[in-house]
């Protein structure tokens, strides 16, 4: 058997588990057997070797520190002998630190990475008691496994098959991911197809709706070119009507929009013109009517005024005695003057009479003629007597004249007023006639009679009705044009629906084809990988199935040697379907109950279970075809895992394993092992280390013998 590259030569331990002060245990020969009572510190050495190489990942590392050595270092150094010299692996846990740190130095004292020295450092077996530690040589593609306790992984590892289940598992995962991705893409394509079908259905519905009442009437379905020609022709017709033009570059839709705009403008212009004319006619008729009424009113006022003037003139003539009013005024003035004169004379006479009476005057105070006082008084008295009746008559006449004059003035004023009114009416009439002439554009007034005006009024009403009819007619045309535009638009819509329908059908078939082709490519790749996976699985299962019966036999053989198990003496390896396609499980059974297999954990005790987990190591110890970097079998108290009542069988297996592995066995059964050692191991190949006492503060005491 090829030897491992490295051989453990010593372990220097400080502050770890049962150790306090730094101590070194040496392994000068290949194997070492550590004998001593329980709790003498043997196990701490095996634990220290394991911790130095792997640390403690599953639990807090503080647990490994010796509680009696809190301030010191917790440190283990392994010396590994190789062809090129001594290598050192040192792991330390600083006080207060949570995680340890490992350093590896080569024979030149240079620090190197663990991955460079032991890239595939692994261990297997039960967690406590026995450790199998090995570091395989570098093999490309081999995955490092820190802990290969799982039975099937151990077997595959020994069979050099681990790549296959690993690849199968990865292919399974990849195919699962790919299935999900494929379903996503398929769903996406399906969504697109559904969306296109929905659109297609909508187009079909629109088309059917339009075909129920086709815009081209009874004619056959026009081609797009025919519809466009119709549109062009209609638009040109509209352009002529509106004195516009349409460019050849305008699309049919744009041309129709333009035509609709023109149609609207034309309709609006006609309506506005008609309405303007109607309004004009209406206003003219109202004005004419009003003027006619004005004329009639003026003529009536004038006639009434004339009649009253005639009556007043008669009353005036009566008041003036048939004379003109001016003469009555002259006469009145004359009488008024006579009245003033008479009054003056009478007043003078009365003053003279008083003067004569007061002064007995004998001379006339006016003409200074000489009279006697009596004469003078008589004369003056006479004058007064004569003047008084005259004055009364004058006063009466004056009063009469004044009354008549007043009455005549009043009548004259009224007459004047009426004359003014008649004049005003005349003017109003003339003005109205003049306005009517202007309105009717008649130059000769004399040609315009009231009947003529009435005839004009009737003509205006007739013209209004004509205009209203024209307006209705224009709107009717406009409606027809709009209907035509709508029909032509309907034709365009029809072509649009049909084009879209064809486009959607193309998209649903040819358009989506590149995506479908890529999807098929995806499925093909998935199927190819799936086919490779299935073929690989088949080849793998066939290989495993072929090797399982002899392997089960070999395992049974080793298992019986190690445990001496009386109840379940058979070991079977089964390929379990359902849990994992590449999963192997170990089962135990008995010749006494054929065809029944049991889970070892259900029927075996702890010792047999531990031994069972180590069986593959011992089986394959015979087939180790390659040299390892490190190959250590650490057994702490063999009675925990093996049947030590048949110690020869166990030592034979250990010797087999020891042909390639370095054994370090710690046991309290010195009396049973030690006498037999030389029968199975050359004395030059093993060292016995004796553990004497254990002091919690000083650590274990031991010595090489």
């Amino acid at each position: 058997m090829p030897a491992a590259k490295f051989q453990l030569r010593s372990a220097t331990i400080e502050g770890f588990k049962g150790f306090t002060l730094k101590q070194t245990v040496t392994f000068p020969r290949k194997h070492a057997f550590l004998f001593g009572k329980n709790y003498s510190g043997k196990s701490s050495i095996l634990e220290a070797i394991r911790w130095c190489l792997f640390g403690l990942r599953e639990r807090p590392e503080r647990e490994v520190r010796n509680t009696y050595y809190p301030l010191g270092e917790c440190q283990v150094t392994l010396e590994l002998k190789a062809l090129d010299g001594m290598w050192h692996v040192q792991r330390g846990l600083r006080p207060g630190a949570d995680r340890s740190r490992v350093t590896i130095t080569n024979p030149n004292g240079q620090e190197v990475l663990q991955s460079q020295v032991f890239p595939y450092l692994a261990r297997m077996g039960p967690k406590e008691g026995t450790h199998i530690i090995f570091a395989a040589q570098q093999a490309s593609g081999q995955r490092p496994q820190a802990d290969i306790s799982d039975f099937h992984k151990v077997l595959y590892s020994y069979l050099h098959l681990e790549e296959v289940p690993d690849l199968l598992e990865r292919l399974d995962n990849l195919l699962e991911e790919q299935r999900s991705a494929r379903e996503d893409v398929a769903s996406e394509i399906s969504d697109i197809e559904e969306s296109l079908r929905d659109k297609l259905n909508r187009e079909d519905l629109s088309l059917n709706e339009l075909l129920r009442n086709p815009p081209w009437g009874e004619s056959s379905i026009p081609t797009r070119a025919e519809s466009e020609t119709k549109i062009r022709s209609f638009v040109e017709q509209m352009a002529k009507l509106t004195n516009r033009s349409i460019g050849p570059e305008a699309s049919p839709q744009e041309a129709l929009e333009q035509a609709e705009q023109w149609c609207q403008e034309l309709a609006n212009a006609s309506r506005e013109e008609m309405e303007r004319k109607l309004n004009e006619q209406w206003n003219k008729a109202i004005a004419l009517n009003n003027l006619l009424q004005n004329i009639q009113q003026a003529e009536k006022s004038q006639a009434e005024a004339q009649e009253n003037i005639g009556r007043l003139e008669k009353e005036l003539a009566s008041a003036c005695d048939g004379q003109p009013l001016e003469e009555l005024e002259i006469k009145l003035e004359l009488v008024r003057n006579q009245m003033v004169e008479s009054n003056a004379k009478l007043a003078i006479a009365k003053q003279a009479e008083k003067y004569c009476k007061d002064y007995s005057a004998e001379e006339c105070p006016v003409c200074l003629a000489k009279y006697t006082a009596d004469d003078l008084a008589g004369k003056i008295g006479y004058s007064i007597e004569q003047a008084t009746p005259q004055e009364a008559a004058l006063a009466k006449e004056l009063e009469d004249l004044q009354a008549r004059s007043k009455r005549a003035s009043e009548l004259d004023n009224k007459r004047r007023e009426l004359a003014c009114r008649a004049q005003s009416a005349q003017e109003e009439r003339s003005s109205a006639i003049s306005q009517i002439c202007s309105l009717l554009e008649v130059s000769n007034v004399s040609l315009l009679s009231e009947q003529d005006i009435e005839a004009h009024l009737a003509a205006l009403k007739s013209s209004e009705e004509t205009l209203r009819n024209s307006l209705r007619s224009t709107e009717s045309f406009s409606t027809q044009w709009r209907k035509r535009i709508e029909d032509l638009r309907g034709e365009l819509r029809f072509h649009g629906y049909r084009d879209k329908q064809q486009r959607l059908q193309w998209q649903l078939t040819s358009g989506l084809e590149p995506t479908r082709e890529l999807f098929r490519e995806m499925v093909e790749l998935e199927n190819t990988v799936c086919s490779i996976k299935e073929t690989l699985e088949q080849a793998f299962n066939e290989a495993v199935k072929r090797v399982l019966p002899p392997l089960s036999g070999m395992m049974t053989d080793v298992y019986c040697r190690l445990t001496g198990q009386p109840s379940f003496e058979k070991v079977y390896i089964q390929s379990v379907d359902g849990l994992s396609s590449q999963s192997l499980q170990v089962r135990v059974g008995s010749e006494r109950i054929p065809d029944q297999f049991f889970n070892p954990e259900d029927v075996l005790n702890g010792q047999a279970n531990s031994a069972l987990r180590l069986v593959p190591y011992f089986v394959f110890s015979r087939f180790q075809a390659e040299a390892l970097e490190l190959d250590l079998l650490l057994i702490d108290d063999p009675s925990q895992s093996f049947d030590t009542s048949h110690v020869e069988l166990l030592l034979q297996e250990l010797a087999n394993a020891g042909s390639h592995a370095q054994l370090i066995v710690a046991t309290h059964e010195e009396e049973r092992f030690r006498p037999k050692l030389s029968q199975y191991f050359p004395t030059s190949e093993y060292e016995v280390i004796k553990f004497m006492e254990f002091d919690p503060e000083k650590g274990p005491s031991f010595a090489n013998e």
Partner: protein
Amino acid sequence: MTIEEAGISNDNLFKDCDSTYVFDQLRRGLESGGSRSLWRRIESEMRSGGVGAVETYLRSTFTEVVQRAKDSAIHFQESLKE
């Protein structure tokens, strides 16, 4: 049953069950040209970077073909909007 009783030599036991043998059997079992070509590529990846490299290669191939199909679907949908 001892190894001797099982009648299996060391060489045979490993020869008929290791991954090299299984891969050889697989190669013989592949029928289509496509799967043989892909397997050759897988073996090449495995030789250069192990099983992890195979996974990386296949994942990237799957991703690429899925992405191309998705891109094509997206491109098609965008062309529908135009």
